[in-house]
């Protein structure tokens, strides 16, 4: 760490403060700004992996109202840049590999590190926010395989918690959120947020929490969608879902009338 030795993989956790006045002193470790540690290590690393929402995009410490100039390693929310700058590439020629999530799934980091260790780092495909598409598929949202998806398709949309059906009207962001939570599940493949009755709050999406909050308000009612690019990210998913609901709802009404 004296600058002499190359680093294999640098894993960064936590948002990186730039303030006050560009000094980075809002976060110091061992008497030095955390920012300097990140910059020094990144300069020597073959691969840099940012782990968790804070290290990737800045997360809550970089959310609206923040006074600390916190940011991610190579992004500030949805904008490329961050502490290392938009043009940064590690020794292996890749930008910072972003594994977002608050928290991130342990499989996402372990399997990414495994790919690097197995010499497959060059095969890691990244989306426009530098997330591995293996875990954060651009054409797929959590909604597609949500355990409660069937209720959505037949229009059983809960308006109160603990009713047991689709959580869309309670603010669920799964239709906008790109991750494999619903097939991978959490804690030894045991459960996930929507299965436990909680709306997805989009904690893997760039710009979280501002881009996906208020958490408990239906997305269409959210006044400003800071950072969520519905056109490019979730257009297909929402469109398909809306058609699905319409068709199913019409069918149900029709059946009732019969």
């Amino acid at each position, binding site marked *: 760490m004296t600058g002499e030795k190359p680093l294999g993989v640098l894993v960064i956790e936590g948002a990186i*403060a730039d303030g006050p006045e560009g000094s980075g*002193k*809002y*976060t110091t*470790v061992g008497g030095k700004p955390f920012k300097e540690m990140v910059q020094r290590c990144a300069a020597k690393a073959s691969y840099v992996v940012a782990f968790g929402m804070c290290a990737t995009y800045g997360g809550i410490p970089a959310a609206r109202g923040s006074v600390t100039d*916190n940011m991610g390693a190579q992004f500030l929310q949805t904008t490329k840049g961050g502490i290392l700058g938009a043009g940064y590439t590690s020794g292996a020629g890749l930008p910072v590999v972003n594994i977002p999530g608050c928290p991130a799934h342990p499989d996402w980091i372990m399997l990414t590190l495994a790919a690097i260790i197995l010499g497959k780092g060059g095969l890691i495909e990244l989306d426009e926010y530098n997330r591995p598409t293996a875990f954060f598929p651009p054409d797929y949202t959590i909604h597609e395989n949500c355990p409660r998806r069937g209720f959505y398709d037949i229009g059983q949309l809960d308006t109160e918690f603990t009713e047991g059906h689709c959580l869309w009207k309670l603010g669920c962001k799964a239709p906008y959120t790109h991750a494999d939570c619903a097939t991978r599940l959490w804690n030894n493949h045991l459960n996930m947020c929507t299965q436990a009755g*909680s709306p997805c709050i989009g904690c893997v999406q760039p710009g979280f929490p501002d881009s996906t909050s208020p958490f408990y308000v239906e997305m269409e009612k959210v006044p400003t969608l800071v950072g969520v690019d519905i056109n490019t990210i979730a257009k297909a998913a929402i469109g398909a879902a809306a058609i699905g609901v319409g068709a199913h709802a019409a069918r149900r009404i029709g059946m009732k009338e019969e």
Partner: protein
Amino acid sequence: MATVVVDPLTRIEGHLRLTAEVSDGVITNAHSSGTMYRGFEQILKGRDPRDASRITQRICGVCPTGHAMTSVNALDDAFGLAEYIPKDALVVRNIVQCLNTIASHATHIYVLWLLDLANPAYKTILETINLKPVWDELVGRFAPISHSIEGKAVPPGSSYLAAIPEKKALQEAIAVFGGKMPIQMTSIVGGVTCTPTVADIGRIASYYVRVMEFVNHYVLGLDALGITSDPLETADKWLELTHDVSKDKAVANVLDILGGLPTDDFSRAAGWSDVALLAAFGSELIGETLLGLPASLKFDTIGGYPVDPTKIGFLSYGVFYAIKEGYDPTSPKGERFITSGFTSGDLKYEEFNHHNVTEHVAHSFYTSGNDLHPWGGETEPVKTTATIKYDDPAAKYSWLKAPRYKQIPCEVGPLARMINAKEPLVTGLAETFLANCYSPANVYTRMLARAQETIILARELKKWVLVDLDSNGKFYTHADLSMAKNSQGVGLWEAPRGALGHWIVTDGASKIANYQPVVPSTWNLCPRDTNGKLGPVELALVGSKVGPVGNVLSTLGAIPLSKENENPTGIFHVGRSFDPCIACAVHTIDMNTNKKYELRIL
């Protein structure tokens, strides 16, 4: 005089720096600095108050559940719903918090604290005084992964290795109700989002059984003692001896158990459980004076306070709802399973009132709002680079504010909870220490209180899961945003590592106007206040021996003291006994020689 700096000794939310002035091996002055500021208070302003319970639990990944519960308590109060929360929603919240507290205590004891007992210094010391068999047990049980002594690799300890899968199992148990862990999702203003089934109850019970098998065999050793090997009655049997009796009887029963163990065989099979080893060899008074052992690690002589009610108190906000519909958000005495209370430094109890909490910023990097109650609290950071420095104790030196209860610095955490609850074993031990001119609070009582609380919670958890939780019950009562218009609320709770309070004020649009969390590590690790009173960890460091040799062998002098500042176990033991977070690498600097050492601690 030398100055020893440990930076970072990380804590829950970030990074901790401990600075100690040392004369003749004894710490004579100490300063505690939090070295990170994120400003959650500013970020929460203007948001939908319901989002606070999701955002604040992300303050900390170690006890996120505590923040989530505290926040929903503040929201229940602000929405005017606290008295209507369904009983079964409260049972689920209890279960989720309890699982997190047990997991956190187990992590602290086995993964963060006990491995300091495999510090190489204790090898030298214990071998010198002919206690090599005790050292063999310590290193054989508590050594962490990647440990080496005198250049030789040491395999991970048996207890350390066995504890890690139990932590994972407890996280999974939380996910049964919470969706995932860390950052469970089920607690919400009005109740919980999950609807537990009988199958979920069975699943949690199966996790309970496997964790209590670990407690039975490794922690308490009740199987080797012939008391019970049944995981389901492990907590009951231990508490029958140490909790459901008078405090004198509780201490006497523990001394009986320890006194009956062989002194030529320290193995687990002989009855020397992890708790027995720590209880006997961790204390000068218990081990040497009362049990007649040849030596001890003397954890009862470090991390204590002067018996002076103007300098220190013990505070608990109370935790775990009574099993009924609704609750009182002000947490009056006796309502919660573990009661609220304030106990003075000379052990006199009084009822808790949250209006007595204020925060000082004289030595904290904030520019305004000294000695304010959190409902009117301010968190305005300094904005100039030059102001942020950690080497001038006369100026500001920490990002932590200095919370005070009636202007008194307070220790929070398991020891404070057990003292306020008048728990028989911990109170009995504390009074025994006081009567023998020791500080009632010290590293030893702090660790035993954490272990004892774990068993007390384990017994209650079994009741909540198997008796109180009705899977056909009601789990939510309607909460509408309009209920939070021009309102305020207080959330009072206990995270595993101590009293946790959230104070919220909302505006006419039902948005957050002010939100102030006061967290346990702020209580325990805070800097000095306007009146110059030291924070608890600062006070606990002063008077402690800095190194292992000076502490254990102070009268023998068989090992030179010259290396004490390079391996300041006193700072590690005391600092970590308050349960701050993971310390990966610790750098120590002896300012006399300006020599820098890097030590691998984990």
